[in-house]
């Protein structure tokens, strides 16, 4: 069975076809890494899968559910970590976590929250307003959120951006754990080296078309596109 499956997805903006017949398949416990030049349509694809945009044609399935028809159920399965941190500036780190979890009907114990914050290395900033967080700290808080939600399908748009080297290690550690527990991960990236550490499948999106490539090529190839 596949956890996340795209079937001939197309997407056009007014003047421009961004995605052309994109099909792919990510099984539970797999991590799929997506590459491509700027403006290739990676973010667009992720937004479609996150039910934020509709494809012009084609469809996709999440844990066997239709991504468009059953989108309300799909939303409960998916979690996206993107460029935006989805955090509120005036709330502190713990309050932001509580809010995000509350929307999903979860209310973890203080101790659980504390552990998650410590694991991503920002335990000391638990009661800092997000307004004073640096980009890297926000990204780490997003990891903590994902740790607490434990989604079955994780979408990540450039997970390594704005993280320093220790931060990237934490991120990969988290991805490895999630896949071990059976989650499917789809990430876009410009960082071949880091992605190669966790990905078991890879693809390049170029001029709207998705080409699957061997993960070994990620490190070996001189140029991907």
């Amino acid at each position, binding site marked *: 069975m596949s956890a996340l499956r795209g079937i001939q997805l197309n997407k056009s903006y007014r003047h421009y076809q961004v995605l052309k017949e994109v099909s792919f398949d990510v099984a539970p416990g797999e991590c799929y890494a997506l590459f491509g030049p700027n403006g290739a349509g990676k973010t667009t694809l992720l937004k479609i899968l996150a039910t934020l945009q509709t494809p012009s044609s084609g469809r996709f399935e999440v844990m066997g559910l239709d991504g468009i028809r059953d989108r309300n159920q799909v939303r409960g399965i998916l979690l996206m970590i993107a460029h935006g941190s989805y955090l509120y500036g005036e709330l502190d780190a713990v309050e932001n976590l509580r809010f995000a979890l509350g929307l999903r009907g979860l209310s973890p114990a203080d101790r659980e929250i504390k552990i998650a914050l410590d694991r991503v*290395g*920002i335990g000391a900033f638990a009661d800092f307003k997000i307004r004073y967080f640096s980009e890297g*700290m926000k990204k780490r808080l997003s990891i903590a959120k994902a740790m607490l939600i434990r989604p079955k399908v994780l979408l990540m748009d450039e997970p390594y951006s704005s993280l*320093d080297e220790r931060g990237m290690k934490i991120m990969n550690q988290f991805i490895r754990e999630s896949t071990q527990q059976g989650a499917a991960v789809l990430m876009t990236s410009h960082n071949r080296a880091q992605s190669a550490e966790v990905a078991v499948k890879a693809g390049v999106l170029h001029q709207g078309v998705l080409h699957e490539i061997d993960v070994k090529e990620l490190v070996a190839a001189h140029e991907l596109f």
Partner: protein
Amino acid sequence: MIRMIRKYEDWFGVAGGICIAVGLYLGLAASPPDYYQGEVVRIMYIHVPFASTSMTAYFVMTAASLWYLWKRNPIVDNMAHATAGVGVFFTAGALFTGSIWGKPTWNTWWTWDARLVSFTILLLILIGYLMLRTFIEDKEREARYAAVLAIVGAVDLPIVHFSVEWWRTLHQPLSVSPRGIAIAGAMLFPLILMSAGFYLILTYMVGVRTQMLYLQQLLEAKKGRLLGEVHL
């Protein structure tokens, strides 16, 4: 400079307290009631000092702002900031006492009179000034923008002062003007005493507040240096 403030501010406070105590006694008990306003006139001994100190406070704020833009001395900015905060208090006081005075004399708490409105605008500018400062993160920029606002806002100052001359309306005209002094001696003395007391208190409050803002800034800088050591 902060040392100087430290050293003298208490004297201002004490002297101001004494002046106001004596002034209140003379004004409320010892002076004669007014020819046609009767006992009500006694509010004057509070209203007029409140009003003139608030005007002075704005004036001082403008001067400090100019000085800051010229010399960029952060303490001067603290002083301007302090004066604004204290100024809001005195301005509100003048409005409040004026309002109370208005009820028996004009038979209304409030009327759309040129002085009243221009003075209310002064209050709004002061509050806007304080709000502006809370919305800027960068200390230096905060000081600069606040100074600019204070200077542009100072255009309202002459309007308040001369409004009673330019628009002849309900409010009392200037009693001390080029045309002479229009007030009885027995009322003048307590009024002068009260005014002196208010000015001293104004100085005292500005001093205390300036110090507070200055120390707060020191503390933040210190915290900054400590936080600079904390890294992920």
